[in-house]
């Protein structure tokens, strides 16, 4: 169950193109599992920005000098994230979390490849730690358009058996995309599970690649959300259920982590005609 708490800013630091915000968040770190996210209200008192911003939880420390703390990574995209980047130590922030359905962890100590695009890697380091604790082999693939848009390269190097970096302009690692290197990695290491977080197009390609090479995939999607808690119905995407029926599921409460083979990636943004409750002529 999520909680709503007032957190205190402990710091905002730059991490390349991104910012990392560290907050106290009483009650949330203890409940957090990799893939969970938080909703942060932005703009302060009297703001015209009424919608919370959702961010996957990057790191948690469930005890320390400030009690439990959590880190979130973000890019400044608009006014809300610009406000967050300007937060000062001791500022108060309203936080709701942990939200969503986290990554499912394998019962057996199997090989796992963690694939992320840009700062989609934010939740992957917590995941890597927990997989390693279970005896799973962890290999990282981090991709971005350019070197400065990668996030957490050093952390990945420290935690993983291998790290492969791809950039579209070749500024670091291999020139190309994560899916250019992924098949070889899965085949060579016999990986059983691929975990992915990043832009929708990347997730679609990773899910297909994993399936084609006999691996399960767990994908954390990024969808625009108004509420983050399951009441507004804005963050939906077509997902196939156990019964084979496609439904428009909420990424905030049924996700953000979905089985890669269940999301109808090519149809994201649409309502496929065979969706449960889809009308003949559109709503």
């Amino acid at each position, binding site marked *: 169950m999520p909680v709503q708490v007032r957190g205190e800013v402990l710091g905002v630091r730059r991490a390349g193109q991104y910012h990392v915000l560290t907050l106290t968040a009483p009650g949330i770190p203890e409940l957090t599992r990799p893939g969970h996210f938080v909703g942060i209200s932005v703009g302060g008192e009297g703001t015209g920005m*009424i*919608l919370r911003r959702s961010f996957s939880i990057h790191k948690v420390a469930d005890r320390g000098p400030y009690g439990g703390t959590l880190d979130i990574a973000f890019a400044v995209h608009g006014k809300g994230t610009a406000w967050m980047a300007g937060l000062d130590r001791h500022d108060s922030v309203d936080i709701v979390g942990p939200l969503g359905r986290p990554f499912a962890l394998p019962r057996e100590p199997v090989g796992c490849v963690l694939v992320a695009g840009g700062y989609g890697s934010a939740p992957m380091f917590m995941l890597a730690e927990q997989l390693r604790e279970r005896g799973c082999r962890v290999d990282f693939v981090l991709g971005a358009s350019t070197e400065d848009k990668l996030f957490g390269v050093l952390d990945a190097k420290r935690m993983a058996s291998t790290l492969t970096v791809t950039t579209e302009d070749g500024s670091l690692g291999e020139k190309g995309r994560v899916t250019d290197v992924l098949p070889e990695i899965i085949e060579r290491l016999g990986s059983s599970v691929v975990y992915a977080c990043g832009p929708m197009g990347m997730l679609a390609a990773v899910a297909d690649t994993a399936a084609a090479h006999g691996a399960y995939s767990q994908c954390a999607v990024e969808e625009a959300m*108004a509420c983050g808690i399951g009441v*507004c119905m804005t963050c939906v995407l077509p997902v196939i259920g156990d019964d084979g029926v496609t439904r428009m599921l909420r990424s905030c409460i049924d996700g953000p982590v979905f089985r890669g083979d269940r999301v109808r990636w090519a149809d994201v943004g*649409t309502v496929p005609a065979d969706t449960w409750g889809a009308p003949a002529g559109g*709503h």
Partner: protein
Amino acid sequence: MTAVIGYGPVGGEPGEPRIDMKTWIGDWVLPSPVMTASGCSANGKELDAFFDLTRIGAVVTKSVMLAPRSGRATPRMAETPSGMLNSIGLQGPGIESFVENDLPWLRERGVRAVVSIAGGSVEEYGKLAQVLRYCEEISAVEVNISCPNVADRGQVFACDAKLAADVVSNVRRIIPSEIPVIAKLSPDVTDIVGIAYSVVKAGATALSLINTTLGMVIDTETLRPALAGVTGGLSGPAIRPIAVRCVWQVHEALPDIPIIGIGGIGSGLDALQFILAGASAVQVGTMTFNDPSAPQRVHIELARALAERGFGRFTDAIGYAHRPHEEPLSDFVADAWAEDDRAGEGADPARPLSSGAAG
């Protein structure tokens, strides 16, 4: 300075002002005038983590139709200044699944449920009412008439006095008379009072004012409408003055009809504006996205705001802004103060309201 009424059990938790927050929608008595708004609280479960749903007046469930609905494509939402635009397309499970899976949960929790229904034809509303008439756990039915009429080239029921009345009378004759039928009106009309008259004549117990107002955002990067559905309903504090105006106008014309005020309510003082304009209750909608515990907080803040202004009973504040300036406030709330005296604690009749109206 503000009048102190004392603190005790009537308002609820310790620290809440001892104000009688009871209100009425027809014969239905609610312990709190604050409800969730349809479409902003799903069917209750999701908000259960954030506050005790039994402590507010009611949960208004998401408008349900006869058949399951997938809703529209995404993007379904765009943030706007002090508001948001949505175009969901009434995604939902359909009435059968709703009655089987969602209503029982609300009943088991003891949550008062107002069921919002939506249809594409007068007959569909009737069929929905047929299903609901046998559901004992319903406190009221809210009729969402801001839907296109399939039979009439998508003319919205709420925008046509006769169509709106047809829908309401069809529901009213099926739903047992002790259960309030609330018509939720759209602000997108030239004469909201005319529509209000029409649906009240058709048997509406009460009116919910207002639904979203139609809006549009164009994405200047893609050079296309921001929503897949092109247009969407604008909600949030941006539309609050429109909503308060609608409540004011309708209350002035129909002072005996209970009104539920809706439109960007996120605080007790926001709610108070609606009450003073003539609302007997309020619904907290879009601001629940900002603060999932907003409905409960609005209740507490409203009680406090009423206490600070010298009201002993919530109902004394309904329509108060319509009263002439010269009418002394102290006479108006005398009954409530007398009750407080009988209760024998905390009341300060020497300074009933004095400067309390300064908020």
